[in-house]
């Protein structure tokens, strides 16, 4: 029997007739436990460090382009120039200082925006009066691009830090509001029925059913909010800032220092990437109960 002992693909049993195997004195071998590593209709085997792969490829192209002279140094500085410039900036303390200022701005704007978004979403998601009063104006605000408000905000709040934080917060609260509100409103009515049969009081209902049910929506909103906060950061930092990564880049532009501009861009990029990764990690932790296609 040649079939005995050959490795078979998952799903195809070895075609041994038991009678024949017994005559040969060999027991038919059990089918080897070869199973597909993942879901057949899933996304396939997880790639290690998948999030970084594309970035690495891109940097590789940059390195190769600069080394071969295909990329003009005046247009785009070589990666090593950027690295030494970054080193210099760190040695002088410029980078840390500006990064600190930028981070504080983004974090403050994000915190205020998230807080406002959550409070407004709860107010309008959990009460009809709140919904009637709040949802309309917020939808109107949503229709106006945040940056179109900038002139007005400068007139109202000047060009100092408050204007910058408020602008960021205004951009942040919209996605938080929209997704949290949607999460609150789309809770399965079967769970509401359950809550009635076990006689949950309203506070308990909100705490045990509504809030956890809306959490996926909130976290999705948070991902948009984090990206949005950095977007707003870039813009407000170029309006009369006296510190921050954007200020550093503006200054470099007037002196024609391409490499400093690129350092700034890389910092913005790393910032955005890290922040998004952090939210995704938070998402995975907080939604451990969910089995999704991603797992």
């Amino acid at each position, binding site marked *: 029997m040649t079939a005995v002992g050959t490795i078979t693909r998952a799903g195809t049993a070895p075609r041994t007739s038991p009678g024949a195997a017994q005559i040969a004195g060999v027991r038919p071998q059990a089918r080897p436990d070869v199973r597909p590593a993942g879901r057949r209709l899933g996304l396939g085997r997880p790639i290690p460090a998948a999030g970084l792969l594309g970035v690495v490829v891109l940097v590789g192209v940059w390195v190769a382009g600069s080394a071969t002279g295909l990329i003009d140094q005046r247009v785009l500085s070589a990666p090593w120039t950027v690295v030494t410039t970054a080193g210099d900036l760190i040695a002088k303390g410029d980078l840390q200082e500006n990064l600190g200022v930028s981070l504080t701005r983004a974090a403050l704007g994000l915190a205020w925006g998230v807080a406002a978004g959550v409070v407004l979403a709860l107010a309008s998601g959990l009460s009809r009066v709140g919904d009637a009063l709040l949802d309309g104006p917020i939808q109107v605000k949503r229709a106006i691009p945040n940056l179109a408000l900038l002139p007005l905000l400068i007139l109202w709040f000047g060009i100092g830090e408050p204007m910058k934080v408020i602008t960021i917060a205004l951009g942040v609260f919209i996605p938080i509001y929209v997704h949290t509100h949607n999460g609150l409103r789309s809770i399965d009515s079967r769970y509401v029925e*359950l809550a*009635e*049969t076990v006689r949950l009081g309203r506070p308990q209902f909100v705490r*045990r059913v509504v809030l956890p049910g809306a959490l996926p929506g909130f976290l999705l909103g948070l991902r948009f909010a984090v990206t949005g906060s950095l977007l707003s950061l870039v813009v407000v930092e170029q309006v009369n800032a006296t510190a921050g990564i954007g200020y550093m880049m503006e200054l470099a532009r007037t002196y024609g220092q391409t490499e400093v501009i690129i350092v700034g861009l890389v910092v913005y990029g790393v910032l955005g990437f890290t922040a998004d990764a952090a939210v995704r990690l938070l998402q995975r932790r907080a939604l451990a*109960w969910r089995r999704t296609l991603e797992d």
Partner: protein
Amino acid sequence: MATHAGGLSATPVATGTDVVAGAPAVAVRGLVRAYGEERVLDDLDLELALGEFVAILGRSGSGKSTLLRALAGLDHGVAGVGEVRVPDQVSVVFQDSRLLPWARVLDNVVLGLDGVGRRDARDAGRAALAEVGLAGRERAWPNELSGGEQQRVSLARSLVRSPQLLLADEPFGALDALTRIRMHELLRDLYDRHRPAVLLVTHDVDEAIVLADRVVVLDRGRIAVERRIDLDGARDAADPRFAAIRTELLDALGVERKDVTA
């Protein structure tokens, strides 16, 4: 009070605190429920004694769920009249286990109980889980359990409230045959220990005969047939008396004997 085209008005469910000995656990009189012009329940009367196990049979769409939802007080907005008297402590088991996916098993069991002595509630929850054979799974997520296990958690959630009335709407309908038999044993076991009145909706005649003290058949909005199950001891489908009751109930359901293949 909302009136609708049919001239029926929605009435609230009367919950009586007075479960007097001798008084029935459930008393339904002249119950009417209608969707639009269609009277799903039409002048229905039903009584359950304390600790009585009653199964409701009926064709699909005959109004079994409508009746159960009326008893559970879940039919706000459905037009109707009539008198419904149920005990204070009513638990409902749904066809889907209806566990909150974001709460761990034990938290699901004690949902809504931690107002009254959190520690006690959790101990009672653990005991209830042990009773349904799920000791040690307290911290599992509902998603990690099989369909049968999820339904057992849902039973534990009902039991931990010491219900005087247990309402179950096809609780085993989504389970495979083998699991269903195990669940029958478990339910009967739990019933013997806790003795709530039970109203079990099912479309499975054998399930009704195996579990209930009395089987009622719902037809055209009323109880059309009532049958006391007077089989003593183990209820065996091979028993000729069992078969006789089955034939009788299938007739009441309008199923020709020769059509039954199972």
